[in-house]
C-alpha cells in the first residue's frame, strides 16, 4: 500500500536524510521524500499497521531533523 503525506522541512539535505531514515523503519518497503512539493510517499509492507509505522517514521525523522513535521494523523 502506498500513502502520501504532507511534510514540513527547511532544507533539501534534511529532506534527503529523512528519506534515508524513513526507508530504514520496519514496515516501510520504500519511501521517497520530495522536497519541492513537500510530500513524503511511503510504500508499506503488506499487512503493516500504517499508523504505528508512521509513528516510527516520524520518530526516526525527528531524530535526524528535530524541526521536521509529518502530517499523518
Amino acid at each position, binding site marked *: 500500500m502506498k500513502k502520501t503525506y504532507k511534510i514540513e522541512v527547511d532544507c*533539501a539535505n534534511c529532506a534527503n536524510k529523512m528519506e534515508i531514515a524513513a526507508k530504514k523503519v520496519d514496515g516501510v518497503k520504500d519511501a521517497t521524500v520530495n522536497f*519541492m512539493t513537500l510530500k513524503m510517499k511511503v510504500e508499506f509492507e503488506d499487512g503493516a499497521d500504517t499508523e504505528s509505522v508512521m509513528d516510527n517514521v516520524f520518530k526516526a525523522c525527528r531524530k535526524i531533523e528535530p524541526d521536521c513535521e509529518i502530517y499523518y494523523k
Partner: protein
Amino acid sequence: MTKKQKNNLIRIIITSVFMILLLFIPAAGIVRFVLYLIPYIIIGYDILIKAVKGIINFQPFDECFLMSIATVGAITIAVITDGDYLEAVAVMLFYQIGEWFQSYAVGKSRKNISELMDIRPDYANIEENGELVRVDPDDIEVGSIITVLPGEKIPIDGIVVEGTSVLDTAALTGESIPRNVNKGDEIISGCINKSGMLKIETTKEFEDSTVSKILDLVENASSKKSRSENYISKFASVYTPIVVFSALALAVIPPLINIIILSEPASWFNWIYRALTFLVISCPCALVISIPLSFFAGIGGASHEGVLIKGSNYLERLSKAGVIVFDKTGTLTKGVFEITEIIPQNTSEYELIKYAAAAEQYSNHPIAQSIKKYVENTDLPIAENIQEVAGLGIMANISGRQVCVGNKKLMKNSGVEVQENETIGTIIHVSVDGKYYGKIIISDTIKEGTRIALNELKKMGIKQTVMLTGDNKKIADHVASEIGISSVYSELLPSDKVTKTEVLLQSKQKEETLVFVGDGVNDAPVLSIADIGISMGAMGSDAAIEASDIVLMDDDPGKIPKAIKISKKCMRIVNQNIWFSIGVKMVCLILGAVGLANMWIAVFADVGVMVIAVLNAIRCLSLKKI
C-alpha cells in the same frame, strides 16, 4: 513570506546593524567578548539548540552541529589569542542569510510552479431548487449535471447537455486555440469556459478526471529521480563525512608532525583554524537544493507548455535523444481523411463537389464524411432515390439528374470510361447523366507542424529520424519524401513495429537514447520498450497518459523539438550547478588547507555558491524563448 522567514529576516537585520555599530565601539577584553556574544546569540541560538539536539541524537554530521563547532571554535581561538570575534559572528550571519534566501527562493518557485499549473478547479456548480450552489468537485457523482458559467474552469470531464460555448484549452495545451463546443460534445476538465453557460453531465469522478490526472502526474514526477539526482544524494552522503574527517586530520596531524618530526612549534591554533574553515564548507547544500529544484522547475515549465514529463529521469534521458522513431498515422499525419485535390472535368470545381456532397449527404462512410466536411455550411440540393452500391459507391437522383459517385468500376457501370494514373490516396469519380464530371482525391493529410518539427530536429543535431507504418509502401514513401524523414519502414504489423524498434535500439550509439512518438492508441508495446515513449494528443485519452513517459497534451509534432530543447536547457543548468558547486568547494577546501582561505571565503563557498546555484536553477522555469 512565512512567519518563520519574517522572524529570521528581522534577526538578520538586527544582527547586521549590531555588527556595524560594534565596528565603531572601542572595547577590549571581556567587554568586547560580551558585546560580540550578543549578536552571535541572536543570530545563532536556534542553530546552537539544534546542534545540542544533534549531539543527543548522535548525528555528528548534522550541519547545525558543524556550524556550531566551527563558530564556537573560532570564538574560543579568538578568546585565547585575543583575536577577532567578528569572523565567527559573520560566518553565522552569512549562514543564516543563505538559509533564509534558500527558503525564500524555494518557496517562491514552489508558488510559481503551482501557479503555472493553476488548473485545479476549486468548486463545481450544482443546481438546487433553481439556484446554483457551489460544491466541492470531489463530492460530485458520475452522471450529475453541473453548470459552468462563462469564465469558470470545467471541473470534471463530461458531456455537454445544454448550451454552446467556446473553450480555452491553453492551460492544458500551452496553445490558446479556442475550441467550439455544442450539445453532445465531450469536454475535459481544466479548460476554461469562455462565452456561454454550459450544462454538463459528468462522466467521471473528479479524481479520475483529466485535470486531476495531470496534476497528479506532475506532482509525482520528481519522485522518479534522475541519475544526476541520485548521484548528488550519494555524493552528499559521503561528502560531509569526508570533509569532517579531513578537518579532524588537518587539526591534529600537521601539528604533530611539527612537534615530532620537524621539532618546530606545533602552531595548534593555526591548524585548528584551518580545520574549522573546512567545517564551514562541509555542507553540500548548494547541490542538494539546486539539482532537484532545476528538475522541478523544468518539469513545471514544460507542463505549462503542454508537455507533461512523468519523471526527472525521463527529462534527463530526453536530453540525450539521438534516434527518434515516429508512428505515421495520427502522429505525423492527421489520421483523418481529407480532400487533398479536386480535378473537375467538363464542369466547375464547385459543381463537382456540390453533386458529390449531395449524393453522399446521408452516408456515414468515412469518405462521405470527408466530402461533407469540405462543404460544411453550404446548402445542398436534395437527393432522391439514393442507392449505396457496396464496394463501388453511391447513386442518387439530384434535381432530376442521375448522379454517380464512386470508383472506376461504378463509372464503367454507368457508361463512363476513366483512366487512373498513379496517385496517392483514394480517388472518387463523379458522373452526372452519364457524363464524366471529374474526380476528387481523398487522403490522409500531413499535420501542419510535421515538416517544421523534422526540420528543427535536424537542426538540433538529431541524426536519425525513422517512420514506422502499417500503410503500404507507396503511401509511406510519399509521406516520407514530403516531410523529409531519414528512413521509412512500411507495411508493418504491430508486432513488426516492436521488432524494428528493438533492432534500432541495438544499432544506436550507447550514450544516445531512442525516442518513440506515437498516438498511444495501439502502440503501447513500442512506447514501453523505447528509452522514452512520447504519446501525443492526450487530451482525454487515459491510455496514452498511462503508456508513455512523456505526454504531449495536443497533437502538434512541433512540441517534440520543444520538449527536447527544454530537457537540454534543464540538463545544461543541472550540469553547470554540479560542476560549479563542486568546483568552488574543492578550490576552497584546498585553499583552506594551505591557509590561503579564511572563514570568510569558506562561508562564501557555502552560501554564495548556493545562492548562485539556486538562481541558476530557477532559470529552468523560463521557457519563453525556447
